[in-house]
C-alpha cells in the first residue's frame, strides 16, 4: 500500500490540471485562483476603501467554494495520502544546504522557514509576509496568477498571458539567483 503515499508524476499531474480547467470551462467558469484574494478583500469590506473591491462578490461564491475545497484537499492529501517529504535533485539539496536550509529531502516545506519555531524570527516573518505581498500585488496587477495566465491564458494563446508568464519566470529567476544569496547568508 506504499504506492498511495508516492507523489504523482508530472505526466499524471499536468493532464489533471488541464482537466480541472476544462471542467470549470464546461461549468461556464474560468480557472483562476488569485481572484479569490480580491473577493476575500471585498467580503471583508475593502469596497469602502477602493472601488476596485466594489463588485457583486456573491457572483464569485463558486470560486470561494473551489478554494474551500482546495483547503479540504490539502488536509486529506497531507493526512492520508502522503508521507509529507519531497525528494528533490541532490545538487539542489547541496545548494540549499549552503543557504542553511537542511530540511530538503526530509520535509514538504523547509522547516527553517515554515515551522512554528521559525515564526519567532522576525526575518522569517518578513520573508513570508513579503513573499505573500508580492504574490497578491503582482497577481492583481498582472490580472492573474499561475492558473489564470500560465494555464488558462496560455491555453487560449493569449499574448498578454505570455508576457505575464515570462514576467513570472524572470521574477523567480531574479529572486533565486540574485536575491536569495543576499537573504540567506
Amino acid at each position, binding site marked *: 500500500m506504499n504506492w498511495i503515499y508516492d507523489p504523482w508524476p508530472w505526466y499524471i499531474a499536468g493532464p489533471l490540471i488541464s482537466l480541472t480547467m476544462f471542467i470549470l470551462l464546461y461549468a461556464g467558469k*474560468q480557472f483562476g485562483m488569485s481572484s479569490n484574494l480580491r473577493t476575500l478583500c471585498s467580503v471583508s469590506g475593502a469596497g469602502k476603501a477602493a472601488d476596485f473591491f466594489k463588485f457583486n462578490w456573491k457572483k464569485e461564491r463558486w470560486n470561494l467554494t*473551489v478554494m474551500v475545497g482546495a483547503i479540504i484537499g490539502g488536509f486529506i492529501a497531507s493526512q492520508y495520502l502522503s508521507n509529507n517529504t519531497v525528494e528533490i535533485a541532490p545538487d539542489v539539496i547541496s545548494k540549499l544546504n549552503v543557504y542553511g536550509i537542511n530540511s530538503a529531502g526530509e520535509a514538504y516545506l523547509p522547516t527553517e522557514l515554515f515551522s512554528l519555531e521559525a515564526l519567532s524570527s522576525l526575518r522569517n516573518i518578513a520573508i513570508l509576509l513579503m513573499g*505573500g505581498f508580492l504574490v497578491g500585488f503582482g497577481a492583481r496587477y498582472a490580472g492573474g496568477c499561475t492558473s489564470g495566465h500560465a494555464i488558462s491564458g496560455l491555453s487560449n494563446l493569449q499574448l498578454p498571458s505570455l508576457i505575464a508568464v515570462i514576467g513570472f519566470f524572470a521574477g523567480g529567476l531574479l529572486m533565486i539567483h540574485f536575491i536569495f544569496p543576499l537573504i540567506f547568508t
Partner: protein
Amino acid sequence: MKTLVYLVIGTFFGILMYKSEAASWFRIFEMFEFGAFHMYGIIGSALVLGIVGVQLIKRFNIKAIGGQEMQLKPKNKSIARYAIGGLLFGLGWALAGACPGPMYVLAGAGYVSILVVIFGALLGTFVYGLIKDKLPH
C-alpha cells in the same frame, strides 16, 4: 447541489496540488534552479493539452453547460501591466515558494506559517486596489 460540485472540484484540485508536489516550496526552488524536469513537465503537459482542448472547443463551437458561451474572452492588450505585475508576482512566488492555489492547499495541510503568506497576499491585493489608478497599465 452546485456548491457541492465546486467543493468536489476544489478538493480534487487541492489533492492534485499536494500530491504532485507543486505546492512544495522545494519544488519551486528546484524549478528556478533548473534542477529537475518535474515542474516543467507539469506546466508543459497541462499547457499542451489545454491548447489542443481550447482549439477543439473553438473549432467545433462547443458550449458550456446550459448552452452558454465558454469563458474564453481575449485578455486586454497591454504590455506594462503584464510585464511589471508578472515580474513582481514571480519574485513573490519564488520567495514564498507558493502561488495562490497552493497557499490554500497548504493551509489545509496544517502549515500555520502559510497564514502569514496568505495575509501578505491579501494585503498586496488590497494595496493594489488602493493605488491601481496611479500605476501604468
